[in-house]
């Protein structure tokens, strides 16, 4: 999420700007002290819809926000707005292009001076909300007649000066829901996922939407046909049958890097806790082979690391499936569990390996939600360290509560 930028702070403190943003106007506060409205639809000289940027001066940014617009004027980047082909929108200002240097590399082509019916007796607009909506509306009105889908209300949020984000684009789900301070609790952590099978790949799917500092993926296996049926999304034939085959972690890193910018792939099986695990804040263990887990768990315990181990057992009988999904949270003081983590290989001949995608997803969801409780994101009554969901009963049982 990054630190709060000047732009974001100014918008948060100014009710008129916050209202514009909430309604979907693509606004920012430029360091040269201008409110910038991007993506304003207007009709160009040829009668087509084009998009420009509107700049409105700010007198002073203070603790109370941006205050009242100092005058009724605005600058515009784009071509001159028209009502329709050949008929300039002269009410908005003079159709004389010029280079207006507004400071800090902010440049405009037109200087507007539009007095709508909503202007106050002193010749100024009451606030930036009224000014911006009046200016946008007079241009948008004509653009809508050409293309009714043209809109300035993109809901896009992208502030000048924000620190590099974990995401390729902003998490507006958190801003819209007004839970940014709660989401911030998840920020900056480094999390490892060991095992990127069905459940592990869904853990990644959920973590990719969290502002983590780093997500580290460990799996030596290649991405093959059966994986495609237990992984989130829809893998292409080209990826499934690639020659040479793609490593699971490389495939998933590629897919999820479209959203999360800090995913690292380690295309090998880990057999002990090396530096790349030791420096992670939290580990999700999603490994099929219990025997492979034992040395990793020992290493994590020695380092006092918290981790979650997941595992399911699905039994076919009477031509139906049933079974249970286990989620075990291990942390200092909670290293033994009622629903124990299997750490030795059973005779595999007798063991089923039935996994169904929504059960992988459910097990991953239970694990990620439990991790978020650990970071104070979700509330809890009693904090459980063992949990299992049983399909036949549609029931979650919990055990090993934190007594503190």
């Amino acid at each position, binding site marked *: 999420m990054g630190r709060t930028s000047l732009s974001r702070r100014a918008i948060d403190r100014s009710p008129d700007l916050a209202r514009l943003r909430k309604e979907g106007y693509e606004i920012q506060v430029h360091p040269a002290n201008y409110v910038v409205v991007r993506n304003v639809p207007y009709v160009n000289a040829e009668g087509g819809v084009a998009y420009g940027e509107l700049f409105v001066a700010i007198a002073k940014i203070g603790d109370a926000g941006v205050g009242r617009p100092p005058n009724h004027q605005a600058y515009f980047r784009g071509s001159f707005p028209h009502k329709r082909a050949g008929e300039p929108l002269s009410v908005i200002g003079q159709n004389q292009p010029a280079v207006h240097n507004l400071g800090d590399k902010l440049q405009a082509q037109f200087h507007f001076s539009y007095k709508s019916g909503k202007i106050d007796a002193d010749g100024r607009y009451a606030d930036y909300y009224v000014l911006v909506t009046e200016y946008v509306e007079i241009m948008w009105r004509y653009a809508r007649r050409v293309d009714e889908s043209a809109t300035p209300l993109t809901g896009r949020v992208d502030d000048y000066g924000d620190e590099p984000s974990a995401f390729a684009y902003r998490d507006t789900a958190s801003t819209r829901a007004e839970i940014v301070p709660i989401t911030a609790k998840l920020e900056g952590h480094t999390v490892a996922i060991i095992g990127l099978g069905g459940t592990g790949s869904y853990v990644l799917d959920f973590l990719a939407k969290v502002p983590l500092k780093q997500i580290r993926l460990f799996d030596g296996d290649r991405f093959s046909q059966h994986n495609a049926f237990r992984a989130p999304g829809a893998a292409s034939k080209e990826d499934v049958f690639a020659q040479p085959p793609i490593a699971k972690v490389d495939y998933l890193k590629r897919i999820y890097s479209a959203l999360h910018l800090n995913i690292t792939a380690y295309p090998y099986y880990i057999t002990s806790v090396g530096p790349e695990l030791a420096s992670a804040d939290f580990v999700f263990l999603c*490994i099929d082979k219990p025997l492979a887990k034992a040395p990793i768990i020992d290493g994590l315990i020695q380092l006092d690391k918290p981790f979650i181990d997941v595992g399911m*057992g699905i039994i076919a009988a*009477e031509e139906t499936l049933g079974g*249970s999904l286990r989620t075990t949270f291990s942390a200092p003081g909670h290293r033994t569990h009622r629903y124990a983590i299997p750490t030795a*290989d059973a005779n595999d001949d007798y063991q089923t390996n039935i996994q169904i995608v929504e059960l*992988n997803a459910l097990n991953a969801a239970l694990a990620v939600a439990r991790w978020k409780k650990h970071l104070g994101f979700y509330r809890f009554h009693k904090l459980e360290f063992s949990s299992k969901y*049983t399909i036949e009963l549609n029931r979650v049982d919990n055990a090993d509560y934190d007594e503190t």
Partner: protein
Amino acid sequence: MSTEPAYEGRPGQDEHKVAFFVNDEHIVVYTASLTVREVLDAAGYDVGTHELAKRSEDGAEVVYADPDEAVPLVDQLRLHTRPRVYHIKVNGRARTTETNPLTYDDVVKLSELPPPTEIIEYLVTFSDAVKPPDGDLVEGESVEIKDGTYFIVTPSNRS
């Protein structure tokens, strides 16, 4: 084998005196009807471990399944007991057992999964039991069951 009349019933109303047998044991009562539970109690059996039954004229065994069902008593009626059989489900399959309560090991055995060892550990979850009605079992624990108790036994090592 015969014993003294064992059940007081309503003494003094000899017109209701009935003498019947449970496993060849002679029981005398002064009432026309008792519940299955009362008959078993009179004969000294626990309703939790025994069921009451009789032979029909064609020799078939008729079981009084409900402990609160009334048994019409007629003179010289011959009843017998048999171990109570519980009808339960384990991983969706119908199973019967005479054991109650059931231990973790008993339930795993009924699941026909490989026996639990230090290597294989199972999650054992149940519903519709007696005490407690819902919960789970780990090694060394047991639960009191009834007809219809439902168990789920699974490993938990796949992801």
